[in-house]
């Protein structure tokens, strides 16, 4: 019983972090129909940057997101203007090719500058846990979860209470309707891409503490994120949150009762099952090209 409660608690903590990471991916797809395969590489880029900041200055890795988030916002803005705006109006598969290429470039640059070695930021609380009754919650996971929830809260506020957010939601739900009320397509898309990238600023900083990583880890991460977003429904934010919760739970439960080796496979199995039986996911638009 304790095992089960422990696994569920850990699963939800991880799910919260996954939710934050997936929110950016689904937001970008929702507004632009761009499947940003480079989202995983953005995470690793930030993790690397966080590790370096922590290593050089001793700053807390999760707090380092105060630096990495605005950086990634700017990075996303520039990337959209220079790169992704060029494929506006093309099919979603074109965006997969372009962003996959982008991910490879980031991976290559990281290989050259940071080396092809596993890294992990290990702040002082790294091995400490909070104890709640019989279960123990690793501090790093709790802090990561709290940071993720805080950012999701801000994201929710921006999307529902500000004009920028309304414009983004309008463009997501009905692009021509948005144009009719004067929402500019390019500006909104660039903003959405910048915000989607900014979520990796926090996500990557959390990742640097919770998981060892090296430049090619982005393949693993984008697969997880795609699993979550496909399960929740491409473009649906609530879908991404629920998908992240489900997969976080599935992963820890598999690790607890099956084996660690199988736990990452859960994501791939979910992608295949969802695409076979419910291609639109729980909440969203269909991923298949002919319906996008």
């Amino acid at each position: 019983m304790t095992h089960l409660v422990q696994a569920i608690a850990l699963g939800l903590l991880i799910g919260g972090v996954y939710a934050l990471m997936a929110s950016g991916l689904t937001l970008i797809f929702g507004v632009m129909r761009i499947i940003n395969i480079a989202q995983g590489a953005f995470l690793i880029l930030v993790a690397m940057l966080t590790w370096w900041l922590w290593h050089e200055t001793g700053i807390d890795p999760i707090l380092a997101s105060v630096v990495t988030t605005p950086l990634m916002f700017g990075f996303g803005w520039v990337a959209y203007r220079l790169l992704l705006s060029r494929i506006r109006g093309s099919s979603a598969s074109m965006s997969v090719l372009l962003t996959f290429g982008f991910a490879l470039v980031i991976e290559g640059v990281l290989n050259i500058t940071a080396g092809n070695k596993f890294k992990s930021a290990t702040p002082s609380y790294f091995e400490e846990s909070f104890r709640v009754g019989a279960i123990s919650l690793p501090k790093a996971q709790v802090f990561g979860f709290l940071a993720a929830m805080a950012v999701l809260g801000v994201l929710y506020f921006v999307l529902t209470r500000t004009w920028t957010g309304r414009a983004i939601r309008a463009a997501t739900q009905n692009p021509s309707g948005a144009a009719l009320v004067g929402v500019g397509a390019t500006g909104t898309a660039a903003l959405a891409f910048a915000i989607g990238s900014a979520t990796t600023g926090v996500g990557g900083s959390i990742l640097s503490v919770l998981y060892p990583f090296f430049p090619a880890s982005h393949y693993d991460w984008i697969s997880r994120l795609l699993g979550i977003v496909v399960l929740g429904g491409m473009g649906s934010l609530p879908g991404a949150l629920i998908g992240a919760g489900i997969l976080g739970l599935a992963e820890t439960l598999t690790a607890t009762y099956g084996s660690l080796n199988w736990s990452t496979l859960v994501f791939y199995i979910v992608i295949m099952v969802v695409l076979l039986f419910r291609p639109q996911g729980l909440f969203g638009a269909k991923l298949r090209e002919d319906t996008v």
Partner: protein
Amino acid sequence: MLSLKGVVAGYGGGSVLQGVDLECAPQTITCIVGPNGAGKSTVLRVISGLLKPSSGEISMNGEAIADRSPDEILRRGITQVPQSHALFPTMSVRENVLMGGYLIRKQRALLRERLDMVLERVPIVAARGGDNAGNLSGGQRRMVEIARCLMLDPKLILLDEPSLGLDPRSLAGVAGLINELNQAGTTVLLVEQNVRLGLGLATHGVVMEGGKVRLTGTATAIKDDPEIASLYLGGASGSSADGRSSGGPKTETTSV
């Protein structure tokens, strides 16, 4: 007020509009009628800037607007209500209407004033304000779409088939709202398949066919002309049956 001269436009390679000339005088209601594929909706799309004309001139109060972006055209007081799916389905009705004021979002006092005006003029917005727009009926949706475009206090409203898919009662409500707006000084240009309804509402009529304007005149003249009805409108106006036609084109009706 609004003037189109020799406008050519289309999608992909072809030209749907093949030299359209059109005038809308201030405070009139002009109704474009004609068979499917005549280019009626396309005319509205080039005016609102959603489609760029390949040649020709469009001007609003003497200023050329053909090269302007949709938001620049909106700023000049031209708003469009498209045929369908104009709303944001998972936003509330109130938020949908508020989005109509996106361009004046920084003028808070004005925004509030406009919202109050719209709430008063279109009661459904107040009555269903908190509901998601996707849960409204077709008639209610159409009212909200028109309400949304009022947020910019438009000089000219473009309506694409306002009657589409509406039951008679909703239809009367929409027609009443259009009349009210016109009486308050707004110029209206609408496209309508329901010829009797459209021309009944309008002061002026325009008959389009094959991407060109074939006839213009007062709405009554076009509606009551049996020849026009049978040639362009498939006899749909049916006005000769109720004996109002006096036979032969009216003097205001001019061939183009």
